[in-house]
């Protein structure tokens, strides 16, 4: 079940010395399987976990997550 939120976690992980999902999971405080589900778009994390992922990857939140290919909810209803 996909969500409208996309992410670049996998790409950012590989850019940081090929950080593993397990490494990232330990830094964020979730299970490896949760990181996998987020990367695959099967699960949308809470805001806190999303921020923790961004901090662990050393980037801003907007560089990790995007909503519906830059489409905002207000634009989608026009």
């Amino acid at each position: 079940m996909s969500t409208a939120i996309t992410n670049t976690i996998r790409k950012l992980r590989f850019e940081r010395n090929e950080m593993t999902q397990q490494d990232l999971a330990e830094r964020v405080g979730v299970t490896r399987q949760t990181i996998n589900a987020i990367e695959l778009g099967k699960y949308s994390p809470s805001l806190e976990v999303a921020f923790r992922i961004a901090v662990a990857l050393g980037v801003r939140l907007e560089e990790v997550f995007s909503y519906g290919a830059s489409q905002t909810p207000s634009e989608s209803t026009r």
Partner: protein
Amino acid sequence: MSFREKSFREKSAWITLITLVLLLAFYLTHLPPPWWLRAETGGFLFHVLTLGMIAFVVIELIAHGIVVLRAPRDARAPRDEREHLIALKARSIAGRVYAILSLGSVLLVIHLGANDGGILYCLFLSFVVSQIVNYAARVVYYGRGA
């Protein structure tokens, strides 16, 4: 994702689901209908139930013990938000199933002339089925992501 790669709680859900299904199958194969009308079969059924529950506990302990020994770090990790959400959603469904099944089955067996033992069995079986639904839902949610 292979069984080995699953999280501890997903493996635990699978173990409990399979064990509950086996327990229910074992119990039902020893349950001659119409059991809800036969007070004299109560002793036999209690014996079967006790054996089944002991087997359930033993299988759970052994299977979970194996999983913990193979991945102790996974087993010690606290439940994260996704696992909390999955457990909540599954319990919600199981609660509704229990409410419908217990009420429906009790009304049905009372209509058919059941004794108190029959009503108790309805409640017990409804509980077991609802727990099967609980763990089946967890397995599905884990497979879907949440």
